[in-house]
């Protein structure tokens, strides 16, 4: 009797994603076993590739989630922020000057191994991204507190276009290398290459999610979740909503920039350079965000990985076998997965039903 009651009491919100996942994993296991037996090298390469792509999507999705959870705004400028961060890294690392000046970047003359100064340049570029996030929030978002959410979303769309134009014209994005130390190199399993960039994306995403997990349990992170849940009650505790918004935007912009850096590398792109395509990473990651649920960090991770796996495996195993599919079709796979996901769970796998949809 007690057991039966407990079964009924299980939150259906946890059940559905579980069922969805079980089905997906089951099918993948059968299919994977066949492919693994056929060509183990290819299968492993495909898996690592899909994890690399999924991690990049998850990073971008996490940026969306941080901003949305705190401010209820879908930040459509995430892609342009991604490209801006990557562009700044290219200024620092490849042009070798402090951006917008002709003063040479002191980090590059520090000596030491190349990867170390590159790492420092990444940190400076991310700090710049955070600053851009802060400025955008202060100038364009803060004045809109209390205004209709739709208007705020449209403002972010305007920002996206503004930043894109600025990046593309004023700064002349052609192909600007980022100076990534591992280039397109990797290690071999059998005769299949597994890129270091896949591993780097996975490690970075893991670090970012762990960091956000701990942040959400810190004093500021608790304040941010309190604001997300009940803004007025949070204000009544003395939480400064403005500061929470600022931190969310800074963190969101940093995650966008990290995603932007991986958007120039395999498996997302082969150029190792910022170009006009880089800003599109946010739109490619959008299905992952929606699938996971706009307000859930775990959703961002799961959504990113599911979409990444679907896109890469579809590209790898269906392309050669189904002749009528065009070359670009893997790019629509994320949207198909998203639509199926939304049919099962309209608010995303981990989304909160109360959330208004923009």
């Amino acid at each position, binding site marked *: 009797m007690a057991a039966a009651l407990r079964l009924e009491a299980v939150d259906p919100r946890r059940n559905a994603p579980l069922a969805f996942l079980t089905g997906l994993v089951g099918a993948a296991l059968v299919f994977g076993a066949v492919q693994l037996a056929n060509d183990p090298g290819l299968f492993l390469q495909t898996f690592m590739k899909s994890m690399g792509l999924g991690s990049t999507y998850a990073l971008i999705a996490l940026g969306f989630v941080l901003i949305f959870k705190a401010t209820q705004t879908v930040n459509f400028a995430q892609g342009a922020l991604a490209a801006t961060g990557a562009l700044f890294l290219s200024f620092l690392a490849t042009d070798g000057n402090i951006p917008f000046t002709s003063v040479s970047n002191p980090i590059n003359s520090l000596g030491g191994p190349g990867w170390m100064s590159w790492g420092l340049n990444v940190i400076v570029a991310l700090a710049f991204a955070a600053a851009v996030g802060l400025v955008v929030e202060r100038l364009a978002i803060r004045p809109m507190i*209390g205004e209709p959410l739709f208007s705020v979303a449209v403002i972010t769309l305007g920002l996206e276009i503004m930043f894109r134009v600025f990046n593309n014209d004023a700064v002349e994005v052609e192909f600007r290398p980022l100076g990534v130390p591992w280039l397109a190199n990797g290690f071999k399993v059998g005769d299949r290459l597994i890129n270091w960039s896949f591993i780097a994306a996975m490690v970075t995403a893991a670090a970012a999610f762990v960091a956000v997990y701990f942040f959400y*349990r810190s*004093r500021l992170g*608790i*304040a941010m*979740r*309190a604001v997300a*849940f*009940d*803004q*007025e*009650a*949070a*204000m*009544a*505790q*003395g*939480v*400064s909503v403005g500061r929470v918004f600022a931190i969310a935007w800074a963190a969101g912009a940093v995650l966008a920039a990290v995603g932007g850096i991986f958007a120039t590398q395999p498996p997302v792109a082969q150029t190792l350079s910022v170009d006009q395509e880089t800003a599109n990473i946010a739109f490619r990651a959008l299905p992952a965000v929606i699938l996971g649920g706009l307000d859930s960090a775990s959703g961002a991770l799961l959504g990113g990985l599911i979409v990444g796996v679907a896109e890469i495996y579809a590209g790898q195993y269906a392309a050669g076998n189904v002749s009528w599919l065009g070359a670009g079709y893997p790019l629509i796979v994320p949207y198909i997965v998203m639509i199926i996901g939304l049919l099962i769970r309209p608010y995303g796998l981990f989304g909160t039903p109360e959330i208004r949809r923009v």
Partner: protein
Amino acid sequence: MLTVANLEVVYNEVILVLRGLSVEVPDGSIVALLGANGAGKTTAVRAITGLLDVHEGDITKGSVTWNGTDISHYKPSRIVEAGITQVMEGRRVFAELTVDENLSAGAFTVRDRKENTEAYERVMTLFPLLQSRRRDTAGYLSGGEQQMLAIGRALMAAPQLLILDEPSLGLAPMLIEQIRDIIVDINAGGVSVLLIEQNAMMALSIAHYGYVMESGKVVMDGEPKKLLADEDVQEFYLGLRAEGERRSFRDVKHYKRRKRWLS
């Protein structure tokens, strides 16, 4: 001491809700502010704690003075830092956060680790019930537990003045008594209390002074003994008629109350 003087508050630039409200909370006392639904009690709390902005409300006249300083244009966080916290109407606990995280949110303005620990221990002593539920999600607590959490959260910033907006709302009589005793305890610890209630019996049984509010201003004030003896208060807030017969004040609200207090 908190002094609210001739306060006028307007929502959306047209709806006049407070019409010259004057209330005082001397240091160390419990002051009850009574009034029917819609009298403007919550609006008064918002005006004192800086939350009118959220509701498109503005103070158009009068002042809120705290220990001699006009605080009517302070931001909510600055008011908390100045020593005024509140238990909002309807509890408003952060249901998705744990009990500990709710308390931690209440301590947002407290930077000192030691002060923080002390406040936490005070709250745990006051509410031993919360101790065993520290890691539970606040949304799964019972109504009474949530009210205790809301009070504990408001105490985390170690206030000098605690404002409670209808803490007895929706609670069983046993729990109301518990909450009442806790308010007395808190006050005994040196915290002034502004107790907003529709439950006049509960509030007047512990208050040092009381105000009765109607349509945005005070229509009667005095010692609890005086208020309890008043025929109108008996009839409309305690549900007693002169002959002792029970009757809801809602039934008579419209004709009689207005006749006596407004004429």
